[in-house]
């Protein structure tokens, strides 16, 4: 398929550049690299060079050295040597606030070197002792959650390292010091309230719920049925609240099967839950068995209910030893169980560590492909996608309703249901739709963000930490690569979400479940990430987006099509260039602007014609003088 290059060029040449071509929005990711320090490829974690301000609330006074958010206070500043892994040591001044670590070069024109929210810090280590020799061997090594390390060399005299270490530890890990996370101090104001984005009743109503088969229950209003579930649940109409309580007793952490999504036409549903408490003795629970059958019957289909257990079968069997297990054939006659072979959180954490090893600070060159393979990262992505495709296909083909669980139903289960919903329902592919999806399947259903990310927590080696949500976002990115016109949001949107997953600037990802958030009054006391994004949506839009209702997207879960997300995982490396806004996108934006311009002109002409004021030779807006001619040949 061809775009005629020469005609495109002609088209472009004819444009008086100053007028017709509007300033393109800053490129998606490249702006991250294009901040003010060309030498060091600035390590800002904001998507915006700090100089340009206001829109996302960054207050920047020219007289001030550090940009500050409302509520942000400067704690200290110090002269340090930043040991850049790409360009060697750079003398600079570091500023530490209660939100960020900010470094300006003292060598070149006080350019910004990086701007890192303290929330990103996972670990702070002292390097070198009193006796250590050699240049820059005494200082701090900071490990970040976003695939990089920051190293500083400090003077041995005058306790400057001790001071910096203590201050950083205090503000990066506030929970260990009985300090609040920055999100609770942040006083930013946006013209959109992100907390209003997700309203469960509205979302269920959009899906056509409640209906004759499904009802909304408030049984969990005060989180008394299940502490980690949301207050509002959708359950089969035929199951009473007492039934639900009895089922809860047989499901790990009371996470009973509840509806996630219903197909608008064939009424097949995706239901999520945790594992049944079968145990070594192979316990059965009549209520649970009956409940699953009720779910199966909601759409009057005779086919069996399909159960997707996300785990590898060996793990599901092993879980019996700790009281868990899976739905056996003899107990659940009307269900068919499949294992999806997705590994646990520990495997995923180690896999991502290996990815960091091959990309930071240096990209493994000579054996890139085999090193990539040895991380297994893309293999895990493949399995998660494959599982979600199976869920989506079952539901979409009208074969049967689907029940998804893993062990507790808050990690792999969330990945599978949300990805399947993204494939099935084009609404979730819009910016707000995606926010609702995350808010619903992840945040409200108790994905343990606090434990998985370790917000403000100093225990970097905590076995509870795992990049499950990152893996989900990576899957979404893979899908958006395969279907470049199907998503309203761009790559920058996904990267922004991931940046604020760690930053602690917003309350969105804090704490483990809705009940805990309610106790902490998170929605009252913090700002939502969606406020930042929705008040500046243009920045996050994919120009190629074509809205298509009812189109099911099936990505190809083959290694032939899966790629490492270079713009995220390797973005700190100045050698691996962030793709400039790619040529096709750039050209498309130019054409879009040209189209809008023509439409305006056409309207003007129509207006001029109708009012009969036309003197082509004198009017300054005469098209013969002003209008660029496009000569596109097809």
């Amino acid at each position, binding site marked *: 398929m061809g775009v005629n290059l020469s005609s495109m060029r002609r088209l472009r040449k004819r444009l008086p550049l100053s007028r017709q071509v509007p300033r393109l929005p800053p490129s998606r990711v490249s702006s991250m690299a294009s901040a003010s320090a060309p030498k060091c490829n600035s390590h800002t974690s904001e998507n915006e060079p700090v100089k340009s301000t206001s829109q996302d609330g960054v207050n920047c006074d020219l007289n001030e050295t550090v940009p500050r958010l409302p509520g942000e206070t400067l704690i200290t500043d110090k002269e340090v040597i930043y040991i850049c892994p790409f360009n060697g040591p750079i003398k600079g001044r570091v500023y530490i606030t209660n939100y960020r670590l900010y470094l300006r070069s003292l060598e070149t024109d006080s350019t910004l070197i990086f701007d890192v929210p303290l929330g990103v810090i996972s670990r702070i280590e002292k390097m070198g002792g009193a006796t250590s020799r050699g240049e820059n061997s005494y200082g701090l090594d900071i490990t970040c959650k976003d695939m990089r390390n920051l190293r500083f060399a400090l003077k041995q005299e005058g306790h400057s390292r001790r001071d910096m270490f203590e201050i950083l530890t205090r503000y990066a890990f506030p929970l260990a010091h009985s300090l609040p996370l920055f999100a609770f101090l942040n006083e930013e104001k946006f013209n959109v309230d992100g907390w209003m984005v997700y309203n469960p009743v509205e979302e269920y109503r959009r899906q056509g719920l409640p209906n004759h088969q499904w009802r909304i229950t408030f049984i969990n209003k005060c989180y008394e049925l299940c502490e980690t579930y949301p207050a509002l649940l959708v359950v089969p109409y035929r199951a009473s609240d007492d039934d639900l309580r009895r089922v809860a007793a047989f499901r790990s952490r009371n996470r009973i099967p509840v509806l996630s999504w219903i197909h608008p036409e064939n009424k097949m549903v995706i239901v999520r839950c945790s594992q049944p408490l079968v145990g070594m003795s192979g316990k059965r629970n009549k209520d649970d068995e009956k409940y699953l059958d009720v779910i199966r019957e909601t759409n009057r289909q005779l086919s069996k209910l399909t159960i997707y257990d996300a785990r590898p079968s060996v*793990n599901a069997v092993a879980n019996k030893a700790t009281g868990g297990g899976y739905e056996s054939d003899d107990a659940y006659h009307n269900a068919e169980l499949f294992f999806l072979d997705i590994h646990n959180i520990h495997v995923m954490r180690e896999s991502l560590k290996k990815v960091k090893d091959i990309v930071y600070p240096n990209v493994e060159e000579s054996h890139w492909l085999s090193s990539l393979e040895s991380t297994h990262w893309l293999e895990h992505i493949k399995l998660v996608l494959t599982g979600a495709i199976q869920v989506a296909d079952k539901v979409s083909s009208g074969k049967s309703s689907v029940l998804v669980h893993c062990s507790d139903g808050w990690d792999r289960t969330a990945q599978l249901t949300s990805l399947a919903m993204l494939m099935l329902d084009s609404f979730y592919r819009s910016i707000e739709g995606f926010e609702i999806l995350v808010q619903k399947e992840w945040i409200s259903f108790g994905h343990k963000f606090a434990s998985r990310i370790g917000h403000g927590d100093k225990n970097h080696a905590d076995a509870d930490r795992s990049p499950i949500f990152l893996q989900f976002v990576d899957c979404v990115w893979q899908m958006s690569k395969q279907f470049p*016109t199907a998503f309203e949001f761009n790559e920058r949107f996904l990267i922004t979400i991931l940046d604020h997953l760690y930053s602690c600037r917003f309350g969105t990802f804090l704490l483990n479940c809705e009940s805990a958030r309610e106790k902490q009054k998170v929605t009252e006391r913090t700002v939502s990430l969606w406020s930042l994004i929705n008040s500046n949506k243009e920045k996050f839009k994919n120009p190629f987006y074509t809205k298509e209702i009812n189109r099911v997207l099936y990505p190809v879960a083959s290694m032939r099509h899966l790629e490492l997300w270079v713009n995220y995982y390797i973005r700190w490396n100045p050698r691996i260039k962030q793709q400039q806004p790619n040529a096709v996108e750039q050209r498309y934006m130019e054409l879009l602007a040209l189209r809008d311009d023509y439409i305006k002109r056409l309207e003007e002409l129509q207006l001029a014609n109708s009012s009969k004021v036309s003197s082509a030779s004198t009017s300054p807006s005469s098209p013969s003088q002003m209008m660029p001619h496009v000569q596109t040949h097809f």
Partner: protein
Amino acid sequence: MLGKGVVGGGGGTKTPKPSFVSYVRPEEIHTNEKEVTEKEVTLHLLPGEQLLCEASAVLKYVQEESCQRGVCGRLVCTDFKIAFLGDDEPALDNAETQFKNKIIGENDITLHCVDQIFGVFDEKKKSLFGQLKKYPEKLIIHCKDLRVFHFCLRYTKEEEVKRIVSGIIHHTQAPKLLKRLFLFSYAAAAQSIIATSPKDHTVMFDTLKDWCWELERTKGNVKYKAVSVNEGYRICERLPAYFVVPTPLPEEDVRRFQGHGIPIWCWSCHNGSALLKMSALPKEQDDVILQIHKSFLDGIYKIIHRPPYEIVKTEDLSSNFLSLQEIQTAYSKFKQLFLIDNSTEFWDTDIKWFSLLESSSWLDIIRRCLKKAIEITECLEAQNVNVLLLEENASDLCCLISSLVQVMMDAHCRTKTGFQSLIQKEWVMGGHCFLDRCNHLRQSDKEEHRRQLSLPLTQPKSSPKRGFFREETDHLIKNLLGKRISKLINSSDELQDNFREFYDNWHSKPTDYHGLLLPHIEGPEIKVWAQRYLRWIPEAQILGGGRVATMSKLIEMMEEVQSLQEKIDERHHSQQRLQAEAPCLLRNSARLSSLFPFALLQRHSSKPILPTSGWKALGDEEDLAKREDEFVDLGDV
């Protein structure tokens, strides 16, 4: 065999491993056979093309919704192609007919496109060649363009099987005389097509004028001249009739060693420096002759070392770069990754895809070609020196490197006609031995000459520029596959520093797509060119996705802008309103497959493609995999 039923029905990870020969439901065959008598599809022959042999009641396997199905029809062999004429050819829709190849149909395999032929005997796959004692029940044809065809011959009459199998083997494997190539009978029978205005067509570089035009275009005419000393190939058959040399070079020097040792101009850079190539003087043991060679070359270098010429840097491609053998070996491994027989094979190889790719070292070869071209670009552009490419015959790696450099430096070479002209200039006129490299005459002893040389040229795709070539061009190049020498680049540190600085510097600036373009060469940036290599594999197609989705949006927008512009023009000139809408080629982009336009004829369904083999052992992570996600305290369970 038929009893085994449908392969992979329903998909999912639970599919039993299909055996090599389980294909068709018996009822399908019956219905199909009935139709045979009702419909006869006619064979479309090109002028000068002759039917040689045929067989009826052949089944062609079609991958559909993760199972294979048989289509009944006739298998024919002509002096140009092998063709399958299915009995129930589906009607093509509008978009499809528009992009249909008018010469080679979906089920046509040109004889030169056949790479390997296999027969299946008792469920065992064997390579077929020479005289056969036993005829296979199934024929598998692997094509050079990476298509794979499976034909079942079980229902075909025995004599017909013999005739068609031995016919195909003979016509695709027996050595051929040049004059017997189909091309000649076609050219004699077909009317020659007269090229239109010279502005829009490819420059063929077969006249003095063409070379003068190119000299003028690149402003090389100040220091270089086109010569006709080889008119009628009086001096050398290897060289084109007309070519360009430094202005002061005496014509008799060209004659001296039949064109060897002569710096031949390829291209001039805007700053005056030029890219030159030279075929090395024949290797000699004799000291006297060596002395003669040396003084000859001294004379030559004196000419080009003196002002107005820039300093010359010699790049010896025969000793400092890839060997043709390396390229050939890598490509044979690489292509094997795409010649996939069935779905099971696809998913089995999917798990170790990256290590398989790496072990072929094809992508590494691509990287090294790109890197060499960037190094030369740096010399021309940043150091302002002339670069002289040196190679035994100056017709393999010279073609590759010089054309890559021009694609990077000269925006004209990135237009359709510009690229075609470049191929004509550097490869066809440059004397690349296509006949040997592709082994068109099938001389088995010439195997060592078959090296995929022009392929690296079609591969550089890590930079966005690639998107601007039209696929037709790719197609053209694809048909020009050739094949051919090396040591690792052991350049000095200084050279590496210059290179790095130049490369990093270019990449840190915004790109001007009409100026110099440098591809990314880091590991993660060199990727498989999916549209070429994966295009026939049904498992790899993304329905409604892939690059084609954005490209069709772009085309739609261009159409819209154009029609708006017309409207404004009409209003302005107060002419009558013509509401003629531009024809819409690709409006229904959602239906296109990512493999479009190559494999658009894959009838697609809405079924997802599911991997059928899953997980590889985790190795050292086995113990982690066994752990619980969290400590489970389940009370009195």
